[in-house]
């Protein structure tokens, strides 16, 4: 079970540790700076933090001593001639790194391998712990990439990277907005695999076009890697290797950003619903978590010790985390709320802090 949480916020990285049965903030790093995400690399215990500095661009920091000291890595960079063309009519512009939107470690057999998904849509690979990065041109150079567009941001981006735990050459990435892309050869060649998803926001004849699907977040079950869950702009979808299947029974709403799946039980997944895209607040001002234990046939609404009156907390796509045991989950909100459960969501505890807006949450260590 993990006793450490990395909480990335608009104003710093907060390290939470469990001691004597309670969770407390034990470290405050990059205070005042915008931390987009943080990740613990289970292969060597390194921590990575991606900073989105408003003036000075995106930076990547690495710590090998659990946050005591940090050193700067390289960041993904676009080359001369790389251009962002989008499918929503915006004029093409020169591609520059806007955001490191996802960061995942490679497999245990790939020391030093990191994957980074970015806005404006490039997937990058490092094989030296972030000292250098290569753009995966097999995806970037596809003509379909110019049909992607921004969802929330001006430009499209890769927010979810799933690496098959049984075969690290198999990758799936989620794009907002650009569907789901698959590579079975370590990122060399790619194909679209969002078939079955439905985009309510598009003209009817484009609703099932895989390349316009606004996936908000996609996760893969480690114990059953054929199973994926996706929280999409207008619904929830699951996949077992074929087409995506829409799950309509999510209560209290099918709209949201975050999803987590149990590491062994593929039928158990959690969502943090909000009202709808034009009203990104909890339904009726009540913070709840929706949990299914039967693959989406039914959902329980978990609310024990979560705020149930005048709560306007929105949970962003990376702000819900689950630990390797599947027992502990934690989520934070754009208004700085933070809650932890140690029994899969039956009961929640609130962190005694008023955090800055929470961008991302991840467990460190196992």
């Amino acid at each position, binding site marked *: 079970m993990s006793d450490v949480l990395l909480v990335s916020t608009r104003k710093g990285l907060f390290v939470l540790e469990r001691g004597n049965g309670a969770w407390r903030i034990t470290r405050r790093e990059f205070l005042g700076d915008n931390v987009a995400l943080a990740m613990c690399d289970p292969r060597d215990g390194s921590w990575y933090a991606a900073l989105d500095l*408003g003036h*000075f*661009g995106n*930076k990547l920091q690495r710590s090998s001593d659990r946050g005591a000291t940090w050193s*700067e890595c390289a960041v993904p960079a676009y080359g001369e001639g790389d251009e962002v063309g989008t499918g929503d009519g915006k004029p093409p512009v020169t591609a*520059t790194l806007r955001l490191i939107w996802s960061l995942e470690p490679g497999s245990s057999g790939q020391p030093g391998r990191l994957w980074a998904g970015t806005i404006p849509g490039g997937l990058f690979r490092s094989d030296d712990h972030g000292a250098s990065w290569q753009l995966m041109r097999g995806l970037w150079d596809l003509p379909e990439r110019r049909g992607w567009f921004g969802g929330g941001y001006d430009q499209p981006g890769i927010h979810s990277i799933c690496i098959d735990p049984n075969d690290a050459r198999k990758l799936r990435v989620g794009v907002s907005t650009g569907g789901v892309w698959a590579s079975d050869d370590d990122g060399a060649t790619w194909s679209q695999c969002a078939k079955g998803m439905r985009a309510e926001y598009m003209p009817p004849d484009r609703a099932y076009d895989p390349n316009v699907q606004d996936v908000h977040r996609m996760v893969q079950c480690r114990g059953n890697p054929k199973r994926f869950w996706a929280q999409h702009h207008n619904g929830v979808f699951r996949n077992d290797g074929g087409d995506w299947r829409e799950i309509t029974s999510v209560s209290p709403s099918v709209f949201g950003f975050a999803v987590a799946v149990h590491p062994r039980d593929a039928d158990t997944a959690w969502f943090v619903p909000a009202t709808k895209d034009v009203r990104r607040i909890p339904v009726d001002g009540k913070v709840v978590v929706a949990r299914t234990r039967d693959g989406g046939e039914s959902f329980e609404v978990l609310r024990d010790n979560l705020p149930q009156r005048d709560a306007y907390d929105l949970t962003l796509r990376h702000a819900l985390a689950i630990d390797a045991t599947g027992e502990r989950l934690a989520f934070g909100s754009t208004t700085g709320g933070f809650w932890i459960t140690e029994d899969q969501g039956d009961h929640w505890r609130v962190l005694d802090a008023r955090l800055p807006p929470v961008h991302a949450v991840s467990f460190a260590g196992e």
Partner: protein
Amino acid sequence: MAKVVLSSALSRWLPQSGAAQPPGEVALTVAGGSVADALEQVFARYPNLRGYVLDEHGTVRHHLALFVDGAAIGDKHDLSQAIGKDSEIYVMQALSGG
């Protein structure tokens, strides 16, 4: 000698050699030439600084301002502007973007 002045918001990202406090505003002397020449001398001393001042295409970052002897540079894509032997280049964050 010409001078490149880094604002404290920028200089705090310079590699620290065990210093407890950030260095505050930092002034570096450089030989003359162009704005680009002056910056290259600064980047030679502090390689990580390049990515803070310029994007990957060599353009001055959108929310960064370069003032040469009190006047903002006219084109963030073009750093060929000549500087005098006693010029002062201020590298500072714009008020936007924070």
